[in-house]
């Protein structure tokens, strides 16, 4: 039996029955990493953490390289952080350690989570386990690929505009972006602070519910975290979808969607209709502004969040061979020129531009207004829908290199996932079929704020009846 191929809840059952030992599970997963990581490049580095005395859930977990683990390098897959080791654990890492989780190492990602394909990593491209010629999606491409390839039982990702859901969709796994404020951001290296959330990437919905229960909860160190009790999400999975009101937004079924994706998602709608759900055609009229709005808000925040990487306090410091400018400007320029990759530079420049005097009102302020309109659309939709169902991404995994020269088409692969971040609502992606080439297709369920239980039970009902999650990538 390949332990690395099991879900966490299957492993926990074996452990409870004394059929395996925690160390056997870890050995199996580490062996798998050694075997397949040279092909996927999902892990940037692995390490052995000291075992915590708690062993309630000794599940091997991979951590996206933008979440702080005390004393371990955290680089956001960027050269500029060099070998920076944070002196503290992120809130979610404290919770993982307290649960007995076995931290395997750091997972590859787009540099600073800027991307939808994990091609902008300074640590090399990640390959999709379903087709090594294709991207795993991004920015949490390492997390999704690792879970799909058996290199981790489950993983943490972060989602600013779809960075958990889109790679989950491309890699045939389950990924959930929680409600903004559900999971503490303390220790997550910020990209777009008003959009970022950490969330689980798992092999099935049950694991997703379990990992979400572990990492959720109020944290006074994060002022945006919300003080609401955390349910045991796994206990609420078995719920009838009869009478559940599911909205199908017409703006999410437009030109540019691959026919196979649309077909799979439409089939999922039919499943729910047959199960007794009430299917409603709805409109989210401001959807067309979501991508533009997102790329203003997110880059504005990113340009400020990344200002701290200046070579002064930690990380990379580069001095030019010959001094050119007075004082410290040389060091700033050289360090940032060498430390950041192209996409990071593009976003820093874009964000700096939209916040600049004379442009602020035209871009940033208008984007904030558009964000409110997009949120209002969703708020209104949730007055007569419980769930909004759509594709997670317009396509299945694309070829490595296919979109790197066209940032705009890359940005459009997040077109369906971005609204949930702008509105701060929870959304899950789960497998809903495969295209003719055998690539996984994902569907997205969005819910009202803190409706994670409803998202999970709806996803669970679909998953159990359709079983797409049991198909595994062959490596």
């Amino acid at each position: 039996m390949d332990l690395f191929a099991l879900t966490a809840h299957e492993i926990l059952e074996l452990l409870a029955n004394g059929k395996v030992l925690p160390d056997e599970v870890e050995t199996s997963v580490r062996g798998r990493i050694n075997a397949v990581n040279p092909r996927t490049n999902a892990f940037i580095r692995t390490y052995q953490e000291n075992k915590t005395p708690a062993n309630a859930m000794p599940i091997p977990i991979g951590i996206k390289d933008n979440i702080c683990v005390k004393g371990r390098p955290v680089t956001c897959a960027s050269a500029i952080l060099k070998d920076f080791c944070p002196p503290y654990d992120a809130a979610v890492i404290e919770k993982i350690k307290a649960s007995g989780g076995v931290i395997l190492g750091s997972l590859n990602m787009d540099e600073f989570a800027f991307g939808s394909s994990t091609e902008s990593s300074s640590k090399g491209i990640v390959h999709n386990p379903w087709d090594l010629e294709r991207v795993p999606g991004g920015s949490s491409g390492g997390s999704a690929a690792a879970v799909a390839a058996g290199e981790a039982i489950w993983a943490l990702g972060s989602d600013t505009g779809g960075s958990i859901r889109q790679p989950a969709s491309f890699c045939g796994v389950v990924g959930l972006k929680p409600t903004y404020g559900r999971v503490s951001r303390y220790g997550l290296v910020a990209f777009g602070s008003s959009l970022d959330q950490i969330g689980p990437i798992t092999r099935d919905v049950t694991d997703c519910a379990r990992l979400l229960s572990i990492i959720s909860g109020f944290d006074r160190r994060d002022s945006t975290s919300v003080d609401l009790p955390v349910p045991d999400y796994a206990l609420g999975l078995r719920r009838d979808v009869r009478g559940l009101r599911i909205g199908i937004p017409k703006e999410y079924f437009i030109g540019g969607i691959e026919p196979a994706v649309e077909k799979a998602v439409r089939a999922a709608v039919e499943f729910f209709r047959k199960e007794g759900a009430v299917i409603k055609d709805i409109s989210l009229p401001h959807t067309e502004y979501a991508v533009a709005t997102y790329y203003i808000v997110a880059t504005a925040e990113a340009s400020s969040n990344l200002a701290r990487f200046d070579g002064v306090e930690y990380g990379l410091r580069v001095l030019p061979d010959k001094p050119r400018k007075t004082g410290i400007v040389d060091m700033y320029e050289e360090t940032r020129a060498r430390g950041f990759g192209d996409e990071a530079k593009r976003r820093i420049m874009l964000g700096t531009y939209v916040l600049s005097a004379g442009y602020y009102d035209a871009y940033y302020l208008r984007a904030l207004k558009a964000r409110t309109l997009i949120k209002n659309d969703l708020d209104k939709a949730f007055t007569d829908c419980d769930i909004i169902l759509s594709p997670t991404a317009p396509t299945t995994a694309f070829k490595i290199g296919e979109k790197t020269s066209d940032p705009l088409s890359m940005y459009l692969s997040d077109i369906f996932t971005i609204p949930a971040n702008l509105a701060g609502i929870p959304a899950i992606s789960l497998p809903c079929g495969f295209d003719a080439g055998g690539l996984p297709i994902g569907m997205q369920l969005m819910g009202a704020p803190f409706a994670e239980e409803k998202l999970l039970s709806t996803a669970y009902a679909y998953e159990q009846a359709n079983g797409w999650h049991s198909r595994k990538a062959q490596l």
Partner: protein
Amino acid sequence: MDFETVIGLEVHLQLNTATKIFCGCRNDFGLEANTCVCPVCLGLPGSLPVLNRQVLFSGMKVGLALNCAINTFVKFDRKNYYYPDLPKGYQISQFDFPIAKNGFLPVITGGQERRIGITRAHLEEDAGKLIHDDRTNATLVDYNRTGTPLVEIVSEPDMRSAQEAYDYLTALKLTLQYLNVSDCDMEKGSLRCDANVSIRPRGESKLGTKTELKNMNSFSAIRRAIDHEVASQARTILSGKPVVQQTLLWNEEKGMTIPMRSKEQAHDYRYFPEPDLVPFTLTEEQIDAVRRALPELPYARLRRLIGQYGISEYDGTILVGDKLAADFFETAAAMKVDIKKLCNWMNGPLMKELNDRRCRIPGLKLTPQDLVALINRVEDGTISNLAAKDVLSDIVETGKDPNIVIREKGLAQVSDDAQLETIVDEVIRENPQVVEQIRSGKASAAGFLVGLAMKKMHGKANPKILNTAIQRRIANV
């Protein structure tokens, strides 16, 4: 041409809360470099700010004391700029919703009361400190100060002379000290001030081009810098040139200003709302609670002291000028004591003791009870004024009961007539020429003999009684 000077001041005040503005680090200074820091104030990746509510209360106190309206919508913004002492590459500040706005401060200047307008007061975090290391020729950064809470108080351009600016700062500092929100020490940098200065032809209503003066480290340096800049602008205009809007650094040693490089002035701070801090709304009840808890402010106290104790504005201003001295005065004044004498003792000998020791009232071991007892021993004739000053010097150090010190030092005035008469006889016998002068009508010469007699009695005689005895003796001989 006759010019009118227009001055507005920006004061940065470090608040004395127990911890920093956005983390739990102690808000302290004088510690070893980079020992009072954490991931949050170091701006480490992944760290997040959390607002210290005490800072908000201090900001509200300052705003209310300056007669401002409080913004119930509490919001922070990021001010983006690069400097090595700013670890995040942005400063968390307040841009469009300062905690307080539209206030004024009453200032007594040039013998009359003026209201200086307060445009706004906003909360923000302090940066670290750059230290140049001569041995290695390197610049080092000390982040201990990073995250120290600041309130920036911006005045209206309401001041018309360097002296008015000085008087405004003095009144502002005093108000802030009464609020107990800061130690207001310019030398330590807990109070810093920049001045915006312009001039215009008298009668003109349009403002002239202003320059910003920085780097002054005392109120008198600010006064000197403004005077210097006003003269410089007048010379520029009189020579037919325009004043250039720029930032100038004051050099105290040379008594002149140096322009900052223009590149350093061309800042676009790209303010935007701080996404890591959620805006919230204060209730009127919360604001009222802070208002009710405000102490009596110096201007109100001065008016009350004058009315309640009948003291002069001059004495009152001195007393109110040090809150602890005024507190001391009021405790003492509640006891059985002559108020005028108490005032004289506080603003005279006691002030001298404080100045000699370069300290304030709590630095002395003197209690109001002991000062009153001492004054009353002079009033009942037990000791002379001179001896009492001696006792004061003693008890401010030792904290002893003045009555015990009088006894120990044997300072009680001699009332034994026989001893007194013997000394008077001696003095008269030893100074026949002086006695002659007195007899021939030069009455003032008697003072000389009183002094000699006092010396022989080690100051323990009552000078009035001595004088009478000497006069009587000479008349009788």
